[in-house]
């Protein structure tokens, strides 16, 4: 029967050294930046969806993240860590910043979303609606997100990165710009708070 498609070695290569070269090229060549976008957009979008539980918001913050990454790419300094850590850091700052500014943030209901659609709505709007519907059907995640959203932003970040995105402690340390030991205790405290939240 059919087998999974064998992944051939990508043209740009997977090693950190190749990634460093790709980032160098991406500073001036759009296609190289496109390659970075292809590699990391889905990861960043999914991280933001975990944080926001809202398709439209995740899409908008992912868009901001990549616009900022492009604008600040010339400031990026290569430190032998994957480029994704830098992108996740931008995404984390953006999503935390969003929630700071919108303390009383409430997600728009599916019914309201449908009401906003008209014949003139673009295919992107309908696609968004479809994605939102699929998300709402993931009841396990929506229940967990409700509990997570009660935690402060730092704890939300570490829980999502550690258990949803399956990042290692050292990767999370790179993303948050904190020592690994601090991240470890943040994860511990976040889990404790989450347990408290579940009790109540």
């Amino acid at each position, binding site marked *: *029967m*059919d*087998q*999974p*498609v*064998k*992944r*051939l070695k*990508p*043209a*740009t290569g997977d090693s950190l050294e190749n990634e460093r070269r790709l980032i160098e090229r991406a*500073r*001036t*060549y*759009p*296609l190289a*930046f*496109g390659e970075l*976008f*292809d*590699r*990391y*957009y*889905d990861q960043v*979008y*999914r991280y933001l*969806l*975990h944080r926001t539980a809202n*398709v439209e918001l995740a*899409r908008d913050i*992912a*868009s901001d993240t*990549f*616009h900022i990454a*492009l*604008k600040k790419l010339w400031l990026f300094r290569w430190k032998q860590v994957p480029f994704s850590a830098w992108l996740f850091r931008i995404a984390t700052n953006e999503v935390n910043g969003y929630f700071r500014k919108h303390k009383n943030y409430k997600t728009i209901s599916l019914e309201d979303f449908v009401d906003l659609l008209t014949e003139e709505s*673009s*295919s*992107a709007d309908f*696609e*968004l609606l*479809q*994605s939102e519907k*699929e*998300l709402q*059907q*993931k009841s*396990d*995640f929506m229940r*967990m997100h409700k509990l997570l959203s009660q935690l402060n932003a730092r704890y939300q970040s570490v*829980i999502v990165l550690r*258990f*949803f995105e*399956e990042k290692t402690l050292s990767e999370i340390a790179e993303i948050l710009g904190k020592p690994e030991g601090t991240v470890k205790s943040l994860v511990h405290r976040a*889990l404790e708070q*989450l*347990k408290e939240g*579940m009790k109540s």
Partner: protein
Amino acid sequence: MDTQKLIEELEKTELPERVPLTSKNKLRRQLLNASYFKKASVRRSTIRYVISTAVTAAVTAVVILYIMTPPTFSSANELLTHIESAYTRLAGDGQIHYLRTLFNTLSGRTPLEEEEWSYGHQFSVKTRNAVTGEELGYTIKTNGKMYSRQHVQRKFKFNIEEKQFPAKNNDKSIRTETKDLRVMVVPLREDSKTLQVYIFNDAWNPDSFSKRTPLEIVQSLKTDSLVTYAGRETSSDGNIYEVLEVNHSKDLYLFNVPDDQKASQTISKLISQVEKGESPRSEIIDVREIIRIDMKTNKIFHVSHSIRQNGYEIDRFDLTFLEEKYINYDPNVFDPLRNNLKELVLE
């Protein structure tokens, strides 16, 4: 609840696999056309200008730069209009159009070199193994009839309503057509026991990749709303290429199938799965077309179709235009008897 149980709960939560593709592609186009890159290009030009002026007199340098610097483009359409007029100027009335092309793939299938002579409705196509020079196929179309000399080909029988086409050359590819889907079967490598099966809709058609002339490519790109101007590249040997990109993010499927007695049966089953929408999500692929235009000649130099899955390139079809010219009409070019070709009758 203890901590371990909580961690298990967290780890088992799932998100939908779907990433909104329309928004993603729109953002990609925005980023690739961002003013950031135009500024970067200006910065490079400025550095070049400063170095030149340091060496020669300022006025001379300005004149030289003005002459040497290729025109700049801000949109795909502007660039396409520019090269379309260059192609139109070259077209020779009453002459045969000659094109020599190299086909290559990332997955290492036999590289092919194709020579094509065309004049009105007549054409003559000779295909060779680009490494050994061995002739693989020779086809002439004249007076509405096809004449050919082809290698023996494998035939696959699919248990679906189908229309079979003879394979273009000896790469053992078979194309079949149902109402909505087209299928291409190619061996992964010459000695491989694996077949690559592409199932696709009209959004991407490998025929369009191999059969069009550069001018036809330009003309079809001009009407394609998905074309993006992706900026300028300088090769290591100093050639300047303008780059266009087309992203076909439609549902396309790629499977690896064992090359055995059951291959036809397996492929039929896969087609049926795709038709019913039951194919695994992970098999869906995207195709990105990248077109490089040589600014010395104002002609398309290279076209590649990058087959991508989960953001990575898993295979690539490369087409390089090695030579293109107009030559005086010679009836021998389209004479099947002179070239020992037999009339081709489609089954």
